[in-house]
């Protein structure tokens, strides 16, 4: 059911949302999240950033997260598009879009997928700062965001 894509080039959020309703008459709600590169992180000024991933495992991890969301809520379809490589501040990094008959399911599943993507999908961020490039550390707040969804399932 879910559609997962890793790509270097920017995505068109409107086209991804449209793909979820195209030719369908049962979708009532599409909740979408777009993550964007900020010029400031943990207090430091940030320029370009670069995302690394683990080809093969990353796609598998994203599909697993989507599968968990589909088991938990009443969904029609899910899409995850994640960019890798160099990106400038203001550019989109990730899109998660979820369609459902009802908005409550779409919102919850979209936020769930983002929270788990942040803590379970193999991506690593390197930022260019005035004092040179640095790898971004995992954030406790992201672990907490993922933890609130459930008793851990592993």
């Amino acid at each position, binding site marked *: 059911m879910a559609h997962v894509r890793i790509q270097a080039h920017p995505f068109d959020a409107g086209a991804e949302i449209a793909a979820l309703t195209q030719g369908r008459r049962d979708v009532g709600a599409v909740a979408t999240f777009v993550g964007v590169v900020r010029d400031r992180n943990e207090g430091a000024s940030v320029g370009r950033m670069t995302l690394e991933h683990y080809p093969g495992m990353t796609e598998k991890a994203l599909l697993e997260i989507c599968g968990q969301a589909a088991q938990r809520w009443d969904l029609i379809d899910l899409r995850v598009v*994640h960019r890798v490589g160099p990106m400038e501040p203001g550019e989109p990094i990730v899109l998660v879009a979820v369609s459902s008959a009802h908005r409550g399911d779409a919102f919850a599943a979209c936020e769930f997928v983002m929270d788990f993507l942040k803590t*379970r999908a193999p991506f690593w961020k390197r930022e260019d700062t005035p004092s040179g490039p640095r790898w971004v550390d995992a954030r406790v707040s992201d672990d907490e965001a993922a933890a609130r969804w459930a008793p851990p399932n592993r």
Partner: protein
Amino acid sequence: MATVLYFASLRERLGVGRETIDLPPGSHTVASVVAHLRARGGPWESCFGPGSVWRVAVNHAMANPEATVSADDEVAFFPPVTGG
């Protein structure tokens, strides 16, 4: 011959992204592979020694130090993830 991958800061600190290692005969776990790597000294000691923080996947699935590793397995070491 297991394939071992390193990502992100771990790859940079070790100076290698992919290698194949010959496992001595017998049964192996992630922990025994880590002990083998650590014995190389230098950055290997600091990346895999006491207090080091890493995650591991075996054949694209998150694993823990007790997980078994066989020849032909793909073992990946990396820092905690920071996507999205």
